[in-house]
């Protein structure tokens, strides 16, 4: 073991930390009381702590390569990760404490990995190991997720805030699954997916406002309109691939948003549309005093009115919509059209040589992906009660695409994990205040380093060996 090299390496890491921490952590601007200006507060103590922490963390990571150091390091880091939250340091140094805990936990996991899983590392290639893990996650966690999602609203820890967050995450899960059809399966990079979300939302809002149709009547219409727009977008981009396709879809997304922003008589322009009708449960509204001639939900079931009924109903609504999307995608992958999408992603020329019509194949992918965005859009409108073009900016498309890519293109469970990570984690990091986005960014960088092909970059064959004993299907 080369002690000098180890110290040099750790020292270098500590130096980099110092250079970064000095301006970012060392100085803080604070409002002077009375609002007359700001003053600078120095926090050199925190800088020193960071530098020391990074030094020892780096040293620990390097020492992990030596097998006889693994167990003591595992014990030490696990001890710090578990013990530190019990100490009173939290109150004084919340950020530093939590960073130490997270870093120790990472080192502990790494040490445990190396200690107990050496056989897995030797002799099997990375993609295979990831594939096994992903297949395992898919088989066991899928049903567990569904069951958890079903009982989620009734868990004692679920507050209204958490339930709202659950609805938000599920909305993005559904959008991710919808975009997965276009990007993950058919391999068409779509940067303007939010346009179809907008079409669905505005379709519902306008049809419900002007024609008085209920949510359930509007839902298929919203999907239909969105699918129609999917085909409209599909035609001009049929011949494009890769970067060029991405640019045109990006433009399409912006066109929809800008039209909505400027066509005031139709969409209300920047003011949006307010008073979008709320959904009802089999025609029964969620309202303390329902209008004449209707029975409210709480009256029918003879329970006290609670505003939470509607939230729980919305939660189950989006859960069902998302699961339908998932089920549909899983089924269609095994049908000729789904297989054709995947083949098209792999090699368009080969597809043509096998008698696949690429035009129809691409258009159906766009249409079906858009349809699910349309459903999600209608849900969004009824949940918010108010929509405006601001909700459909490019950043939404980027987030949805990030969910698909981060999850591992084409992986259904991966989308769920990525949506929880991308939508849920920033909420959980709120306690970190201004460091929230920093932690979020660090998480993203970490994932891209350890999982460069996405969280679960695994493709399940659409026909399995067991099904095909004797070369059948």
């Amino acid at each position, binding site marked *: 073991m080369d002690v000098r090299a180890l110290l040099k390496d750790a020292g270098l890491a500590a130096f980099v930390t110092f250079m970064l921490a000095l301006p970012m952590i060392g100085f803080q601007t604070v409002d002077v009381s009375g609002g007359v200006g700001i003053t600078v507060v120095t926090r050199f103590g925190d800088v020193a702590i960071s530098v020391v922490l990074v030094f020892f963390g780096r040293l620990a990571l390097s020492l992990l390569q030596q097998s006889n150091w693994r167990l003591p390091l595992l014990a030490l880091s696990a001890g710090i990760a578990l013990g530190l939250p019990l100490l009173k340091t939290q109150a004084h140094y919340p950020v530093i404490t939590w960073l130490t805990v997270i870093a120790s936990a990472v080192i502990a996991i790494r040490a445990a990995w190396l200690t107990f899983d050496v056989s897995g590392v030797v002799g099997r290639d990375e993609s295979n190991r990831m594939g096994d893990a992903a297949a395992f996650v898919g088989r066991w966690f899928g049903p567990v997720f569904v069951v958890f999602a079903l009982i989620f609203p009734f868990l004692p820890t679920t507050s209204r805030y958490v339930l709202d967050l659950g609805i938000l995450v599920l909305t993005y899960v559904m959008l991710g699954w919808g975009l997965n059809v276009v990007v993950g399966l058919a391999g068409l990079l779509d940067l303007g997916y939010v346009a179809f979300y907008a079409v669905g939302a505005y379709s519902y809002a306008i049809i419900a406002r002007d024609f008085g149709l209920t949510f359930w009547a509007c839902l298929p219409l919203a999907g239909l309109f969105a699918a129609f727009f999917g085909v409209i977008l599909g035609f001009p981009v049929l011949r494009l691939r890769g970067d060029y396709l991405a640019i045109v879809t990006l433009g399409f997304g912006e066109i929809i948003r800008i039209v909505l922003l400027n066509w005031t008589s139709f969409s209300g322009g920047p003011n949006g549309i307010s008073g979008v009708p709320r959904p009802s449960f089999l025609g029964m509204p969620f309202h303390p005093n329902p209008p004449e001639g209707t029975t409210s939900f709480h009256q029918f079931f003879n329970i006290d009115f609670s505003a939470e009924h509607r939230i729980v109903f919305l939660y189950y609504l989006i859960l069902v919509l998302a699961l339908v999307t998932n089920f549909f995608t899983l089924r269609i992958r095994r049908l*000729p059209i789904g*297989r*054709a999408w*995947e*083949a098209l992603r*792999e*090699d368009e*020329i*080969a*597809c*043509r*040589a*096998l*008698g*696949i*019509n*690429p035009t129809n194949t691409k258009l159906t992918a766009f249409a079906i992906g858009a349809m699910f965005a349309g459903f999600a859009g209608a849900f969004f409108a009824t949940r918010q009660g108010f929509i405006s073009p601001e909700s459909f900016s490019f950043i939404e498309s980027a987030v949805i695409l990030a969910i698909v890519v981060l999850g591992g293109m084409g992986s259904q469970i991966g989308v769920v994990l990525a949506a929880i990570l991308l939508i849920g984690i920033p909420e959980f990091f709120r306690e970190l205040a201004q460091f929230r986005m920093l932690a979020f960014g660090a998480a993203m960088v970490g994932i891209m380093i350890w999982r460069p092909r996405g969280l679960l970059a695994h*493709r399940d*064959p*659409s*026909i*399995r*060996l067991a099904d*095909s004993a*004797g*070369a*059948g*299907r």
Partner: protein
Amino acid sequence: MLTIRGVSTSYGHIQALHGVDIEVRKGEIVTLIGANGAGKTTLLMTICGNPRATGGRILFEDRDISQAPTFEIVRMGIAQAPEGRRIFPRMTVLENLQMGATVADPAHFDEDCTRVFKLFPILDERKAQRAGTLSGGEQQMLSIGRALMSRPRLLLLDEPSLGLAPMIVKQIFSVIRDINEREGMTVFLVEQNAFHALKLAHRGYVLANGRVVLQGTGAELLANREVRAAYLEGGH
């Protein structure tokens, strides 16, 4: 069965084929040999309608297919194992075969699979494996097997020997002879490996600079001094 009459093809301003005439009769193996850039692959792609012929006519079973889109041509009974194999690397061997059966009746699938596995037993062993992990020779076998899945009446092969070890080339060529002799499959074979191709083929054409310069039976061409000098010199 396949009649190519005066076909010309261009890429933009560059004309790749200048009035090519080729005839493939039912039950034959016909080979097209030529140097790099002679236009062999272009001719094969033109038969499949990508790129379209700018002049001349291509008749398949007496129907003009020169204006039909590629996927329609495949449905008429022409299958192609394209240059560079072009298998679907992330899909399994079995899924690749399934894609080959896109235009075939699903009822035949099991039977056709068995037939392909009989021709290439290695594919049977590898059927659950991702196609991208196969060796070059296995990928070529998969490419040919995939083309056979559509039950074509005419099989187009583009350089099946490209980049393969001599042993594998021999094996693949013997399978081509097999499907021709036992099943009466008509084969149009484009090759650089002139020696093997001419030995296998009933008739052959030599293409140079987008024109057919020589034609005859395989044996005739093998004995031809020009062919020997240009394509067979220095072994095979």
